[in-house]
């Protein structure tokens, strides 16, 4: 804040010169390190989220009412239990979840802080969210097509792989995109437990040391990251769309 006002008082400068002075103290190495950390956290947490969430989403879909396994007693019980767990997990705010599962995190990756330590909570927070998105994407698949596959003698496994996942692929890609963007904002929050990455940087310098310049750079970096994720996601949806 102080720097900004000093710059104003001196002899008038061009916008470009003003920006240059404003960002002069920002260390590019620090920014690129933080960006890498964010990408690392995002990459791993997204990978595990997609794998686990897809499984959970498919199970939720199959066991839900009037679907492939729906109506059977074990399916109804399984759906009720999973659905409840998912709802509970989704209602706990990320910051609290992170602290809550610290012991589990430590067991899994050996530490509950830093970049590694933030991956398990990210996954735990994103899986239920992504699973619900998967469940609703699968619901969009034309029942008639599933029925046609059943009539052809396809097993449930084949129907899941060759019909459900295939026909819902644009919905699934969109779900991955939304989840990735959500994970970006979660990685920023993991700065609270020293998670590293852009959010951590913004928090430590911007908030605790009043470095507005660094705060602005990290925000721009996050915006660019989210934009890229969204654009890639949309492009993939367009490419795979056959409707």
């Amino acid at each position, binding site marked *: 804040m102080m720097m900004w006002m000093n710059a104003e008082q001196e002899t008038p400068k061009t916008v470009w010169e003003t920006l240059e002075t404003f960002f002069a103290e920002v260390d590019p190495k620090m920014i690129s390190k933080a960006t890498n950390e964010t990408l690392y956290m995002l990459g791993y947490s997204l990978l595990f989220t997609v794998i686990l969430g897809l499984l959970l989403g498919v199970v939720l879909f199959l066991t839900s009412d009037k679907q492939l396994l729906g109506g059977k007693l074990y399916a109804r019980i399984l759906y009720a239990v999973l659905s409840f767990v998912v709802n509970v997990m989704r209602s706990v705010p990320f910051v609290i979840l992170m602290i809550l599962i610290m012991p589990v995190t430590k067991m899994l990756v050996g530490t509950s802080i830093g970049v590694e330590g933030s991956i398990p909570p990210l996954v735990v927070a994103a899986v239920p969210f992504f699973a619900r998105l998967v469940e609703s994407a699968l619901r969009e698949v*034309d029942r*008639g*097509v599933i*029925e*046609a*596959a*059943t*009539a*052809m*003698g*396809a*097993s449930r496994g*084949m129907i899941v792989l*060759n*019909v459900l996942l*295939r*026909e819902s*692929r644009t919905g699934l890609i969109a779900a991955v995109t939304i989840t990735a963007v959500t994970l970006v904002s979660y990685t920023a929050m993991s700065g609270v437990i020293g998670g590293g990455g852009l959010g951590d940087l913004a928090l430590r310098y911007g908030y605790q040391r009043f470095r507005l310049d660094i705060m602005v750079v990290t925000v721009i970096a996050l915006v660019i990251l989210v934009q890229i994720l969204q654009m890639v996601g949309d492009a993939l949806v367009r490419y*795979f769309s*056959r*409707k």
Partner: protein
Amino acid sequence: MILLIELIDIEKQYIRKKAEPFIALRGVSLKLEKGEIFGVIGRSGAGKSTLLRSINLLERPTSGTVIVGGDDLTKLGEKELQEKRKKIGMIFQHFNLLSTATVRENIAFPLKISKLPAKAIRQKVDELLELVGLTAQQHQYPRQLSGGQKQRVGIARALANDPDVLLCDEATSALDPQTTDSILSLLRDINRKMGITILLITHEMGVIRAICDRVAVMEYGQIVESGTVLDVFLNPVHPITREFVSEVSDTLGSEALNAFAGAGRVVRINFRGEQTYEPVLYETVRGTSATFAILQGTVSRMKDVPYGQLIVELRGSDEDVNRIITELGQRGLAVSEL
């Protein structure tokens, strides 16, 4: 005649929330012979789809027996049922194609399920594309096809595993009349050339007349009338059957006749087969001193069989008219006095 499918006393109840179970089928029995085209007709909600879908157990009957090719499907395990289903092709009103797969991939799908080697799949798909006339469109996606073309893909897909029977659920109901005709003639070709038995359901008597050998009429979950198409057509008994028949033929149950008050006796004469084109009526009447007037009549074809129906007023002495009626009967015509 070899029996291919036998449904015995099928009952189907749909469990409803907060309501009595809905009884969609009330003890339906049906026998399907190998190589025939059997039609089931009925109004919306009569239970046609439920009946058709109970054959491959897409809808499991509440009670009753479903025998296909000698096996009771209701007693089979899941794996065995899946194997059986491969030999029961099915096509749908709304086609139900994979929207993300090309024509070719859609037709290959059931073969992939049957785990055929890639080369065999390619060869079989080529044959099927040729059969349904879609070789040029093989790399297109369903959304790029017309309704008729989509149904052709559906048919090719249903035939991929060389089924014994083809179940058609309102296969032409979403299509315009010309396209309907082309799909029906494709089905007829398949029946003739490949000997595949066809069971189709429809609410259009025109479809039944065009390709079916036998027909069953359904109402409120029951079969109320059945027989060869010609018999049912020419002598419909149940009121619902009469309604269906009158949709495609103008000879029956017309009000115009009720108002008619002629001098003579009115009879209905049904012709069938080559006789339709013979001057039977004239020859018979000529031998008497009676005369006749044709009040109404049609001459048409039912699938391949020519048939005719005349409503005739016979004028003359009772003796002459009785003689004419007897003689027509002796020459093989069905005569009934109205």
